[in-house]
């Protein structure tokens, strides 16, 4: 796992930790990725590539201009020394290269991850069927030539050639290539387990399936397109930010361009010096325009996508990832998200005259052969509470649960041990001539009121007591919800349980609200209601009947194990089918926006220091009094300007790790978060360049370069 996931999800027992991304982790500056990134940075110097990014395009034009001026100056009649102009030109080129490098590196990482994800699905042999039956004619072809709607046969040992929906057959499928989960899963036609993913392998039996996506349209392919800068569509916030950056660039273009006439006037008015040189103006312009964010903007977007991929989430658009940051209501299914999948025994409540140990003993006896998770949990609870171990039983005949008897247990000779629903056990006991004590009735009610399921245990005609089964809330989830609340995100639990049960679990898990006895249409209505209040809703789902709600939700994460309909309706697919991951998705979305905001603020705040470096230097000859503004005490005008340009280029390199990793996300209220980030990136951005430029100036002075 990469560093971010570790910090974002500290060990809390939430099963996020269980993710085993199959794609290996890529260290930030992996040497394997560095070399191609360097090559790519030069390739991106072409004007077409630069034109996509208006801010960097201005730098590119400036680099070309100063280079020409420098070459001209070599002839000895330039506007300034050739060394100075070419020095500026070189650092302007570095600025462009560094920005290219950041983008190339982010793309390289994304592509490496995508390639690993895709690896298994290349050049697979597909068995195309002429019609949807086993008797159909089989054509063997390359998976790349499959089209949506084609029918394929996948037999034991075959790799699934494309994303498809099972029409016929039942098979066990190894999805570890995608999910990292080694246990095979059952896929069958109809219902919620009918989707198969390209690249997974059928272990037993066979399936006939209809291909649901053309090659290149599958989720993975869409994701890969999003980490390739040139094809990446800008997200809405990115577009808005780009507009702002262009506007800032225009402001600075105006401020620097008008300096030329201003300085010409000043020269004639002061009768001293010469007008400011074009080189200095270009240097000033490049330092002022938001190159830091402009150069890293694309890398941030690509890195966001690639973080999603590292979390094994495939988003259909960058827009969806960004929207995740805006979500303020999370709809979470109870089972699997908030609670572990099954109910478990949590307490032994003995009837009057029976000890807890006796009840546990009998309950364990009744459950020894019960292989259901509930049954096993009773055995385990008896062991942990009363140190009762499983034992050898002679002459025992196990009675399995049936829908008719609604009881299970064991017959040991004539002794009948049973456990089951209260009504069933009551009938059983009364039929045997036993008593149905009032105390047990009350216990049963108590448990039901708490949201648990009561199981009554009887030994012959004697009622021993009640075993309380209840939903086990996942460890750490409550803290997770508390964090979400701090972030201003409301959690709503969706469950088919009755209100009583739902309320009890909701209280225990610490969700803000719940929807009990929820039908799919209730879910849809709930989403619409929240949206009408002006909230953005995120949810997870896997069943076909979730599809309308998924389509309505602003951020909809479909489980990979879910149906094709659910996946089509959602805007993200979680390959691990882990509903808790929604929380992580929200964090990633926020982190992407925060990184952009932080770097924009930093970039703009930097400009103050650059003015203090360049303005006195540019007008040193005309108005020597302006030296009063040289608060950093820089060596010489040339050194001051060069230092500012070098700082401006180097800061991009220093911030590449931040752009790729993202600004550390903390769960706190918006106000506190803003205060923190303003202090770090606003105030920091104001101060850092003063120090940086001074240091570079000292180094330049030390080297005798300026």
């Amino acid at each position, binding site marked *: 796992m990469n560093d971010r996931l570790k910090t974002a999800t500290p060990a809390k027992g939430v099963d996020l930790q269980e993710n085993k991304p199959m794609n290996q982790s890529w260290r930030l500056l992996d040497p394997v990725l560095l070399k191609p990134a360097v090559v790519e940075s030069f390739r991106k110097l072409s004007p077409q590539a630069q034109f996509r990014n208006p801010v960097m395009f201005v730098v590119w034009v400036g680099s070309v201009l100063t280079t020409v001026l420098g070459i001209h100056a070599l002839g000895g009649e330039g506007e300034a020394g050739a060394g100075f102009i070419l020095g500026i030109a070189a650092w302007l080129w570095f600025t462009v290269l560094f920005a290219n490098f950041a983008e190339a590196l982010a793309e390289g990482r994304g592509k490496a991850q995508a390639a690993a994800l895709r690896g298994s699905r290349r050049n697979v042999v597909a068995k195309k069927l002429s019609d949807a039956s086993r008797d159909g004619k089989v054509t063997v072809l390359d998976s790349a030539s499959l089209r949506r709607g084609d029918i394929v046969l996948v037999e034991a040992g075959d790799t699934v050639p494309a994303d498809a929906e099972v029409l016929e057959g039942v098979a066990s499928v190894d999805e570890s290539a995608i999910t990292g989960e080694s246990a095979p899963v059952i896929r069958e036609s109809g219902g919620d387990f009918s989707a198969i993913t390209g690249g997974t392998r059928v272990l037993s039996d066979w399936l006939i399936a209809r291909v649901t996506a053309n090659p290149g349209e599958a989720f993975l392919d869409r994701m890969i397109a999003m980490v390739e800068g040139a094809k990446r569509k800008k997200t809405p916030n990115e577009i808005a930010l780009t507009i702002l950056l262009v506007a800032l660039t225009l*402001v600075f273009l105006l*401020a620097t361009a008008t300096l030329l006439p*201003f300085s010409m006037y000043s020269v004639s008015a*002061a009768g001293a010096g010469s007008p400011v040189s074009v080189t200095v103006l270009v240097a000033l312009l490049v330092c002022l325009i938001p190159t830091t964010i402009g150069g890293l903007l694309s890398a941030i977007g690509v890195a966001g996508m690639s973080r999603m991929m590292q979390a094994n989430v495939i988003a259909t658009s960058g827009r969806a990832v960004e929207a995740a940051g805006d979500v303020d209501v999370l709809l979470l299914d109870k089972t699997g998200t908030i609670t572990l999948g099954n109910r478990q025994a949590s307490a032994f409540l003995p009837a009057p005259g029976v000890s807890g140990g006796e009840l546990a003993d009998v309950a364990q006896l009744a459950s020894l052969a019960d292989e259901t998770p509930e049954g096993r949990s009773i055995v385990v609870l008896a062991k942990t509470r009363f140190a009762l171990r499983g034992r050898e039983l002679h002459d025992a005949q196990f009675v399995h649960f049936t829908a008719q008897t609604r009881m299970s247990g064991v017959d040991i000779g004539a002794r009948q041990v049973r456990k089951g629903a209260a009504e069933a056990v009551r009938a059983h006991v009364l039929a045997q001539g036993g008593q149905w004590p009032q105390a047990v009735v009350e216990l049963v009610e108590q448990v039901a009121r708490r949201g648990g399921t009561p199981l009554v245990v009887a030994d012959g005609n004697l009622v021993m007591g009640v075993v309380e089964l209840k939903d086990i809330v996942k460890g750490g989830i409550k803290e997770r919800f508390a964090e979400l609340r701090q972030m201003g995100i409301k959690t709503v639990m969706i469950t088919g349980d009755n209100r009583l049960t739902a309320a009890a679990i909701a209280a225990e898990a610490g969700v803000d609200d719940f929807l009990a006895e929820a039908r799919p249409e209730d879910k849809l209505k709930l989403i619409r209601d929240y949206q009408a209040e002006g909230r953005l809703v995120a949810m997870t789902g896997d069943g076909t009947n979730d599809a309308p709600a998924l389509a309505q939700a602003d951020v909809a994460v479909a489980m990979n194990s879910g149906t094709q309909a659910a996946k089509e309706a959602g805007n993200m697919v979680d390959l691990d089918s882990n509903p808790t991951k929604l929380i992580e998705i929200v964090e990633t979305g926020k982190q992407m926006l925060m990184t952009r905001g932080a770097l924009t*603020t930093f970039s*703009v705040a930097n400009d103050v220091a650059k003015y203090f470096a360049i303005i006195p230097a540019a007008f040193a000859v005309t*108005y020597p009094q302006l030296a009063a503004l040289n608060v950093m005490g820089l060596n010489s005008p040339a050194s001051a300007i060069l230092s500012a340009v070098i700082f401006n280029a180097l800061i991009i390199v220093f911030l590449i790790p931040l752009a790729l990793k993202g600004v550390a996300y903390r769960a706190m209220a918006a106000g506190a*978060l803003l205060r923190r980030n303003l202090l770090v990136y606003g105030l920091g951005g104001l101060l850092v360049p003063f120090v940086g430029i001074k240091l570079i100036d000292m180094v330049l002075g030390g080297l005798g370069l300026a």
Partner: protein
Amino acid sequence: MNQSAVVQTGLYLLVLLTLAWPLGRYLAALMSGGLAQRLGWMGKVDRGLMKLIGANGEEDMPWWRYAAAIVLFNLAGLLAVYLLQRLQLSLPFNPAGMPNVEAASAFNTAVSFVTNTNWQGYVGEATMSYLTQMLALTVQNFLSAATGIAVVVALVRGFARKHAQGLGNAWLDLSRATVWLLLPLASLFAVFLVGQGVIQNFSPYVEAQLVEPVSYQVAKTDEAGKPLVDAQGAAVMETVTVRTQTLAMGPVASQEAIKLLGTNGGGFFNANSAHPYENPTGASNFLQMLSILLIPAALCFMFGRMVGDVRQGVVVLASMTLIFVAMVAVVVWAESHANPLLVQLGMDAGLGNMEGKETRFGIVASSLFAVITTAASCGAVNTMHDSLMPLAGGVTTWLMQLGEVVFGGVGSGLYGMLLFAMLAVFLAGLMIGRTPEYLGKKIESFEMKMVSIAILITPLLVLGGTAVAVLLPQALTSLWNPGAHGFSEALYAFSSAANNNGSAFAGLSANTPYYNLALGLAMWFGRFGVLIPVLAIAGSLARKPRLAVSVGTMPTHGPLFVVLLVGTVLIVGALTYIPALALGPVVDHLQLFAGQGG
């Protein structure tokens, strides 16, 4: 800052905010239509007026209809003011027989008064007939202020409404702002001014005998107007003795009141509020200063009430006040120091910089007035800004360059500030990891586009205009002062025009074809280049849903947002204008105190 300055500024703000609060409540009730519903007769007057001008006051206008109405209304105003000036000799109420105004000047003045700039390239008492002053200039003083109010109200409705197409009715908004706000306030204030000694008459100019004849020397000129020189090259001087003075008369008080209340600033006389017939006493001066910022401040409260959260308005007002107080401190500090060159010549340094100031106001009241008039886009002056110390002059220039958002013009100040709020929210919103939102409205690419246009247009006009002015030979002749101070004069003129302030640094002959035309265009685009994007934003916002507020929403009602908003305004203003200011006021200041300029 000395004690007197603290007391005067404190008292001023106290009275201002105390009066702005109830006025803000009144404005909210008035502009939301709630008042007309409660008072039947008011509704009747409104409907009657709509009938009179043939407008359908019921129509809920989409933003482009609203914008079209505003622009057409102002174009009509432009034409009317232009024609009245051009034909004044043939029209009544012209006892001094003022000739028709020359075309370029008339154009400049018409744009100037329509855009609430009130830049005056002309000398009022020597150019305009009483009819022009009253019917053209004073009327536009009302209507341009009403325009500002209508536009800001439309923007506020954009925030307040959800899933709405319309922004209200432009005609009704204009009429309500004029009839129920500006007219009553101006009438009241005019009466007070008359009580203080401001004149209000239609008399011809008075020829008064001086108690003491004044003699002074002037350079003798030849027929071409060139100064004559003697054999040594020194100018030939002659002595002139003056025994009489012409006292200009006119309906001053009625124009004076709205000049300040509407942040117009166009004086009846050339000397503006320094003239004893416009601003005779300390009391009239205090109330004039008060009336400049009264409506802009009240609009902040109105904004808070109309969006359903008064704190939002308070935050905006607090941000404005904070910047204002800081600027007052700098100006008073700068003005308390005498010009070192004059001190070298033996002048008493104790008084501070009294050059260009009226003795009846003194340093503090003059400095305060200078900051108020440039903070608001008023432009009335009671002191000569050209004579301010370089730093103080720089501050007043910068206040205008900030976009006139520190209180700013009536309406335009608030809508300008709200543009900056959207910009601040955009940066901050990203920093907390959410799509930026302000008052429950998402700020997306369309809004950013419009905000960018609105924020770009004035620097383009200011810097572009100044750049041309310091290159063009015919424009350069207008500068009276050489060097950095001359540059400051041109910069100030374009800053003033493009931001619709209208005050002049003086020291610049602005009544030339170049300046009349260039500044006229700067004023027009500085006004409508911002106003139209603002209405477009309002239209887009009104269509959006209003998002619910949660802990995850960035709070825009606390001190943190004040800091953010102030920071955004100052940083944007600084980054845009630092180079220009460095070459003007900053160099001027450094040279002056290094003892080699002025």
